[in-house]
């Protein structure tokens, strides 16, 4: 235990986020004592589920020195096309849903990969373009309408729970099985980033692409695999979102890129690339989710919420950026 309680560990960025989360929880708990319950844990986990998956992909891409603002559009495209396709051809298979949606995500990821790795277009502009393409395409196809009929065997998944708890007033909260998906992905991302040559290559490219190339990393291949893998995972997360929401909406994820990027940056990933950890990212998502879910409990009026979330994001990202700058400028031995 003593080994963990060192000054270095206690002032790490991840720990700062933990302190803020603790303070915020105490504040919310003081106003509303119902906050400290198993139900809150389950609700928070449920609202973090898809965001964590997006954030993991975004983190890996930001570590590699890029950025991706196209994932909400890719997700909307994948989930809507999959459900529409399955309804049209009366396909009722869970495996097909995940496979097809993941495949569509992979295709969009491949487009990002070509634009960024092959043509060397700045990642922000390239993914803005992809985002507009995917979102425009799916809105034209859907006409802006959502589908509320999901094939029955796929829809049944939304009623599979790990366990349920019932609180004193009789409200039952259940944890969906899908929570295993982000949990598994967290372990996978941690393993790949920390313990494989490919993962170290992502950090190396983000630190300095030229240096990484000279060291023998294949920058082109690493970027291609990264963006395509991100597309695949986003496609899978998208269909999960559709199953949990029990409808396929062509636009309700749009705009979430802002929150995800903010969560990643607050979690200590440097926007300039080369630094970041899975633990930090999960904590960042937890903080943002707690803030956006519980502002009502703190009696913040509805119309102030965008501003409040924006303010927290600006402060959070400023602090992490300033810390990163100080570390970068500090003398190294």
């Amino acid at each position, binding site marked *: 235990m003593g080994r963990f309680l060192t000054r270095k560990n206690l002032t790490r960025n991840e720990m700062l986020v933990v302190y803020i989360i603790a303070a915020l929880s105490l504040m919310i708990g003081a106003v509303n004592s119902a906050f400290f319950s198993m139900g809150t844990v389950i609700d928070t986990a449920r609202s973090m589920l898809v965001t964590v998956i997006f954030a993991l992909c975004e983190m890996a891409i930001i570590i590699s020195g890029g*950025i991706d603002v196209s994932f909400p559009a890719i997700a909307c495209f994948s989930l809507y096309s999959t459900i529409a396709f399955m309804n049209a051809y009366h396909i009722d298979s869970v495996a097909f849903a995940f496979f097809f949606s993941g495949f569509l995500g992979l295709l969009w990821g491949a487009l990002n990969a070509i*634009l960024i790795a092959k*043509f*060397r*277009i*700045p990642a*922000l*502009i*390239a993914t*803005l*373009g*992809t*985002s*507009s*393409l*995917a*979102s*425009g*395409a799916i*809105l*034209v196809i859907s*006409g*802006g309408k959502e589908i509320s009929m999901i094939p029955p065997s796929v829809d049944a998944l939304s009623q599979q729970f790990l366990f349920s708890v019932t609180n004193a007033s009789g409200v039952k909260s259940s944890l969906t099985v899908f929570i295993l998906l982000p949990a598994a992905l967290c372990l996978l991302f941690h393993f790949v980033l920390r313990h494989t040559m490919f993962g170290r290559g992502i950090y190396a490219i983000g630190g300095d692409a030229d240096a990484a190339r000279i060291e023998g990393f294949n920058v082109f291949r690493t970027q291609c695999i990264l963006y395509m893998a991100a597309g695949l995972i986003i496609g899978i997360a998208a269909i999960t979102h559709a199953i949990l929401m029990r409808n396929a909406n062509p636009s309700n994820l749009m705009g979430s890129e*802002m929150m995800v*990027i*903010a969560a990643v*940056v607050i979690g200590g990933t440097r*926007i*300039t690339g080369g630094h970041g950890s899975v633990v930090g990212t999960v904590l960042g998502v937890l903080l943002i989710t707690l803030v956006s879910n519980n502002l009502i409990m703190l009696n913040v*009026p*509805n*119309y*102030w*919420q*965008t*501003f*409040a*979330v*924006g*303010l927290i*994001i*600006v402060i959070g*990202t*400023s602090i992490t*950026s*300033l810390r990163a*700058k100080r570390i970068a400028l500090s003398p190294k031995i």
Partner: protein
Amino acid sequence: MLALFGIALGIIAIMAFADPAFLKGSNFRSMAFQFPEFGILSFGMMLCMISGGIDLSLVGAANLSGIVAAVVILSTGGSIAVGIAAALLVGAVCGLFNGYLIGQLQIPAMLVTLCGGQLFTGLGMAITKGPAITGLPEQILVLSNGTVGGVLPYALLLFILIALALGFLLKSTVYGQHLCLMGSNPTASRYSGINNLHVTLLTYMTSGILAAVSGILILSHYGSAKSDYGMSYTLLSLLIVVLGGVAPAGGRGRVSCVALSAVILQLISSAFNVLRFNSFVKTFVWGLLLVIVMVAQSVIQKEAYQFLNIRRKNYEKDHQQA
């Protein structure tokens, strides 16, 4: 520049062939009323991009300025001049906020303006409490819908004046030179005695003021103010600037090309309206255009680079023989 002119003429020619209604004077008139809104936003984007950054908070700042203008006009009992002054002030403050975080705290522009946009939109929403602010005096509509002598719309006149002013600013002032130098290499510009912080603050402030001007035009166009008007303008202004040949890495950019490319996008947009495509198709096409333009520029750049390399090698070979 010539290529852009060619594209514009090409679109007009194709559309004249597809639907003669496109060539009507009324169509061109309505275009002249529409494009200054996002054209002026694009100038803000252009300045930031030349400085090596980007401004994704333009629409947020524009709406916030418009909302403040509306509130001030209503509370002062119809004084439009005060409202406009307040809007410009708000725009400048938004820009200075961005500029301070970027220049002084050295946080990447993309992150700052992405968050800043959220902040400004949120502030606008907090002021309006959700619904649009309406009930403004009739005179406010004149700005976007009135003309000088029945020919030249005020909005177009404003656009031309701003374009001329910015052209002068970039070409013939010390600030303009400093901006381009800082954009192409911030370290070199700092060592050559340019105050990077100063230039960054000025750039984002100007961008904020331009956003405010556009916000006033939007206010005047709709006759009301809301925090989510013109959300598609962020992508559109980026597309205009990139099509106008401004280097995304910074350092280069011409006002005339950006102005022309704003006109081109208005032509495309009007063409879609005449052909009765819905607005979702536009989103798709803007994305497609952005990708195509960027890929084309990337290919051209590579070719040019290879061409220079071959020339250099030939030159070296000749000299070795000599």
